[in-house]
């Protein structure tokens, strides 16, 4: 087995890049037992298959990866070979130290030049995505190779270039994931997926950028498509879902209005109350009274 690994703390090359925990490449020419057990750790890991084929477990699923395929392992997800075997072939990987805030949102830290909204949209898509395998995503292997070259060459500007390339990797991964789930051919299905994502994270303060990124469209085209398909702007459609869910919660006597407001994504009970009245003609408490009392 040939292996080349840089590790934070022991490799001088990574001194200027505290966010890179590990960067490596492996070429394995014979099957090795117990060489690739399942482990989990903080941070994000990206594994790019270069040669051969590997059967890997990510989280609870099992996946077969071929050259060009990439496994994306999110913080605390289990990753490794199901039976611990390291198969024949070659792959490269990078392990990044990523912080998460209280909502588990992934924060791309000081090294990143992405804006806050962009990085939040990327985080949302990586977290919502259900398949950890990006198939035929050759760009990732190329970027890891290029980062390795920059680290060993240390030519002028290498620090900036490496950090740019990590950003680039995140952007491309996000775009690849949305294209993988949305073929760009079936808007009704795509809209249904979006609707599901919104409902599952209704308390999140969604922006149009995040919603558009989830669908894999630019905001202008996204606005047009949603408007012509649903009759509503994306934000008004979201408000529609919020109030519909609130109506259901109001019919349950055990929840207080502030909780309902926050659960359904309103930033205050005042904001909830005005919006609710505007759309339904009743304030939330009037509505609750009408529906809880016996007619």
């Amino acid at each position, binding site marked *: 087995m040939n292996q080349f690994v840089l590790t934070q703390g022991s490799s001088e090359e990574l001194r200027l890049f505290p966010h890179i925990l590990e960067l490596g490449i492996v070429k394995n020419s014979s099957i090795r037992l117990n060489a690739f057990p399942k482990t989990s750790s903080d941070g994000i890991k990206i594994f790019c298959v270069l040669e051969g084929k590997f059967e890997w477990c990510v989280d609870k699923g099992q996946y077969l990866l071929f050259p060009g395929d990439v496994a994306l392992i999110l913080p605390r997800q289990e990753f490794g070979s199901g039976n611990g075997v390291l198969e024949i072939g070659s792959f490269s990987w990078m392990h990044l130290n990523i912080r998460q805030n209280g909502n588990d949102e992934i924060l791309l830290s000081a090294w990143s030049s992405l804006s806050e909204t962009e990085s939040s949209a990327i985080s949302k898509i990586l977290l919502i995505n259900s398949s950890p395998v990006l198939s035929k995503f050759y760009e990732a292997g190329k970027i890891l190779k290029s980062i390795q070259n920059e680290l060993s060459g240390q030519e002028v500007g290498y620090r900036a270039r490496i950090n740019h390339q990590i950003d680039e990797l995140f952007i491309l991964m996000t775009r690849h994931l949305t294209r993988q789930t949305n073929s760009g051919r079936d808007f009704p299905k795509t809209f249904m997926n979006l609707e599901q994502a919104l409902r599952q994270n209704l308390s999140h303060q969604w922006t149009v950028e995040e919603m558009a990124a989830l669908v894999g469209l630019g905001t202008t*085209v996204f606005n047009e498509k949603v408007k012509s*398909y649903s*009759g509503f702007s994306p934000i008004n459609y979201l408000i529609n*879902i919020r109030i519909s869910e609130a*109506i*259901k919660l109001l019919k349950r006597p055990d929840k207080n209005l502030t909780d309902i407001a926050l659960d359904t994504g309103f930033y205050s009970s005042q904001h909830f109350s005005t919006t609710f009245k505007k*759309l339904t003609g009743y304030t939330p408490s009037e509505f609750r009274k009408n529906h809880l009392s016996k007619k």
Partner: protein
Amino acid sequence: MKCIITIELGTNAVRVFAFDLNGNIIGSLKGYYPTFHTEPDYSEQDPDQIFLTMLYVLKNLLNDTIHSKKYKVACICFSSSMHSVLPIDKHGNPLGYAITWADNRAKKEAQSLKNSSAGRSVYKATGTPLHPMSPMMKIAWIKNNDKERYRQTSKILPLKSYIIQQLTGEYMIDYSIASATGLLNIHKIKWEPDALKFAGINANMLPDLVPVFTSAGKLKKAYQTSLGLSADTKIIVGSSDGCMAILGDGVKGEGMATITIEDSGAVRVMGGKVLQDEKQRFFNYLLTENCYVSGGPTNNGGVIFEWLTRQFGDFKNPFDIDHSMQELINDASKVPVGSDGLLFLPYLLGERAPIWNANARGVYFGLNIKHEKTHFVRATIEGILYEIFSIGKTLEEHRNIKSLSINGSFGTIPFCTQMIADIYNKPVRLRQNFQSVSFGSFLLSATEMGIYKSLDEAAKTVFLPDQYLPEKQNHKAYMKYFKIFERLSTRLAPEFEEIANLQ
């Protein structure tokens, strides 16, 4: 100036139109609502989201167009999809989501009744095919499989009744929607005891049965205020989308049929008599007393061509299905009639009329080495329309059809309209970009207001300007293929069943 507002509660969206008293459209808006499929056979919608979406869209239309132009809303008339089922508790709150027409969970209930002699007499009395779409079957399913929900149920409403009740407080069901529940004796216009018994409910659990012209009381105060409407705005219960579509095309009396092709499709005729079919292939719904809308529905309309487009369209821009469809149709128009012998059975979603076989599947037949992509495209369109023709042909066993009108997004594509004229060998009329369902609601409202003496008189004013005439040569060619199509559709039944079991 007075205006009439029509509200169409469709499968995926609510469409609100405002008409002046001459039937010109002043404004229109739509609002989408989702359908949930939590199990493969399930198809459900959130009644509160539908109500909210309807309010939101209505309010926007009133504020944007109606109030600013100083129109006074004389009435609001409803239409909706058929066959929905919403149980509510004693407080009037929904018990879960509404079950829509497309829901197939009640397969067993439908099968058991269809195979019995009781089934035959229930179909004769109610006119609704014994199929999982029928509310009678869905209610029986709830009784058999969701005992807690059944126990808490105080009333069972179609979605439209729930929406109207939210607005006015009145529980009402119109003749048309009632006649599509499988529970109404359409000859006596009374709830049918045997059907109620099968469903496991009594008549008190259903809304009040009323004619389509009935006003459902006053808007609640809160809605008068928030919508800016006066207390005397009439809320007319209206009819079903199917009945409104045929009325909106001006069909009243015999000799004409209306073809609707959206995602799914239907061929309908109107007449004074119930169309009794020994093979139970048709529905018979009531528009008014002694006025029956009869016909057959297909699952496989425009949705099949959309499927084809998603597989083979070029999609130069993401999600631009309209453009991709047009390109494919341009290709198809260059292929000769009959697609050089490539034949397509469109049963990707199983089929209702006329073969009523849920196991039916799609087939390309007659494929040879010279066929190209464009042949597949043309054959697919021809197959969808052969199916539409086979419904019309079975209807002609009972009724004389001299001419056709057509509506719906797929049927009104000029290439398709011409093909229908050719296959049927009858002239076809339509109005481009026209909403027949909403116009039917307008005619019904205007009749209620006394602008027309009767629905007959209202229907006579409808003028459909575009006419497509059949080409004799094309008709002859199509008929050679249709003969094979028709035979395959029934002959393959054993193979359909076997392959469906493997899927």
